[in-house]
């Protein structure tokens, strides 16, 4: 019990439960399977990007450029798919290769020239996005093939509500789940995953115990790019159009979700459970406000307050912990 109380995740979970109770008391259709499946589908995009950002934060870096990477991947995928056809697998393969390539560019600049990751990725965000917008002329892309449109509506599990409308667990949610399991295995059971925590905690020590820092960096930014590629395809699936400005500008929203989940910007800490709870908190908040008929312009006020309270609480608990440690040392 005491162990649970010390964890950030517990508090986020309690807040989600509290919000859910309040929202349900106002509008009973919040706590239905239909709404849940709906949220799980529409928040796959944020959820997948959040996993990538978590990896980068654990490794002690930060990535701002992933929104531009996702946009570029989405564009290349859309043009190739519409021009040459293909199937869902090739669409994902194309987008992910683009994502990995751009991620590797970030990693090389950060490592070889020793430039801080936030600065590198702010620069590459502008470069990727700028070049894309110039080359594409800022045009929107419509007219995906039929199979692409059908895939977006495919469900693993189909139910029918009282009004006769079908709903269910979307395939897109399964992709999110698969990535989540993969990420969990990497972080928990592989040397690679432990290396990320080690590097985030202290890069010099990690290098001395034998971790290849350059390889870890390459992996983490390539993985972020890979997930940005997948997220780009999912965004295209969800809205069925490709616009140059539909993703760029959301980078700090994703960062906020990960931070709400308790990941630290100093590296070496952060859990997938926390990150997913952070995404869930944002999903419940924004969906709940709509359900309670609160005008949507109140949304940022609530999210802002929650971020401030959450980071203040973490800071307070960190200081308490430090104080305890100093007291122990003094004895």
């Amino acid at each position: 019990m005491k162990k649970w109380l010390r964890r950030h995740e517990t508090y986020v979970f309690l807040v989600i439960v509290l919000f859910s109770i309040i929202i349900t008391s106002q509008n009973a259709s919040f706590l239905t399977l239909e709404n849940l499946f709906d949220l799980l589908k529409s928040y796959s995009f944020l959820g997948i990007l959040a996993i990538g950002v978590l990896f980068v934060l654990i490794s002690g870096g930060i990535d701002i450029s992933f929104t531009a990477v996702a946009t570029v991947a989405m564009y290349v995928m859309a043009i190739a798919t519409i021009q040459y056809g293909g199937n869902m697998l090739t669409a994902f393969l194309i987008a992910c290769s683009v994502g990995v390539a751009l991620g590797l560019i970030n990693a090389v600049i950060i490592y070889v020239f020793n430039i801080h990751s936030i600065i590198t990725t702010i620069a590459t965000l502008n470069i990727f996005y700028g070049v894309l917008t110039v080359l594409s002329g800022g045009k929107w892309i419509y007219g995906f093939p039929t199979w692409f449109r059908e895939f977006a509506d495919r469900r693993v599990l189909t139910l029918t509500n009282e009004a006769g409308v079908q709903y269910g667990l979307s395939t897109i949610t399964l992709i999110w789940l698969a990535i989540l399991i993969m990420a969990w295995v990497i972080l928990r059971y592989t040397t690679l995953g432990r290396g990320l925590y080690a590097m985030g905690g202290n890069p010099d020590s990690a290098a001395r115990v034998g971790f290849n820092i350059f390889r870890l960096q390459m992996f983490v930014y390539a993985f972020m790019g890979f997930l940005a590629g997948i997220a780009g395809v999912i965004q295209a699936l969800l809205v069925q159009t490709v616009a140059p400005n539909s993703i760029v500008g959301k980078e700090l929203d994703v960062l906020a979700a990960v931070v709400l989940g308790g990941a630290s910007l100093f590296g070496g800490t952060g859990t997938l459970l926390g990150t997913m709870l952070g995404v869930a908190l944002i999903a419940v908040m924004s969906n709940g406000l709509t359900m309670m008929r609160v005008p949507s312009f109140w949304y940022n006020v609530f999210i802002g307050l929650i971020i401030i309270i959450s980071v203040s609480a973490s800071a307070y608990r960190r200081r308490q912990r430090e104080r305890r440690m100093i007291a122990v040392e003094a004895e």
Partner: protein
Amino acid sequence: MFSREYSESLTLGLVMVGVLLLMWLLNGSQFVTIGNLQSMAFQLPELGILSLAMMITMLTAGINLSIIASANLCGIVTALILTRYVTPETAGAETMALVVLAIAAGLLTSVIIGLLNGALIAIVDVSPILATLGTMTLLNGVAIVVTKGYVISGLPEPVRFIGNGVVLGIPTPMIIFIVCAAVMALLLNRTRLGVNIYMIGSNPTACYFAGVNNAAVLMKTYLISGLYAGIAAIIMISRFNSAKADYGESYLLLTVLASVLGGTSAAGGFGKVSDLVIALIILQLVSSGLNLLQISNFLTLAIWGIILISVMVVNHVTQQYRERRVTA
């Protein structure tokens, strides 16, 4: 041969001359006309003052992600007072008094925001990027709630002068920027607070044990940062002749880009106002030059990114070269 800072300033100066010559070459004589110089002098101050607001927090190894959101909120406060109380019937003197009052209210808002950021960072001990990420979202939210997402437009004439007027051939926003930059330079180089700001950025623990009240210095840093965002807000609403919750959002990452290009270290402790001004001039030359060639603004963004990485690479290589010579 050269100290690190001197060599970085030199690189930056060379880039500026190079960019100037290149743009001159590409555009011909139309690049150095009075009209073009003046339009550059109108455009630079907004990003310039916001970059000063960003830079001072980066010197303490912090960051202020909330500057654009605070600027918009301050602009909205000022614009709301102006549009509500200044009518065509109000007399000259009364209008002036209301304008001064409205601007004072806007700047007061920015000071309060600065204190809020400062309190979260200095007293609650939240890391600056998280604290200001939170206040950024909150302030943006408040701005949307206050305006319901609409534009507040139609400001009285004296306010429009601030952003669009010309005094002795120099645009008023440029004069305000020069004053802001000079004050910032004096503050950083000639006052105790300035020295403490650099010290906190280099080593907060050493600074604390040297008898500096770190919390007070950080409070003042974020207060000044907020105030500068407020000043930028007044210029912004005056130039747009309106205020809105989401103006200038793309400026946020650009202020970091400008600061870093100007030699400000993200790890804190290093950075000079003069280099930041050179960096801003480089960015403005590229932007105006490409604009005259009718090249897309987005390519300008890409080129700004490329310049930033190139300058960082050159600095890294020269520093390694110097280190190797020292060890040899």
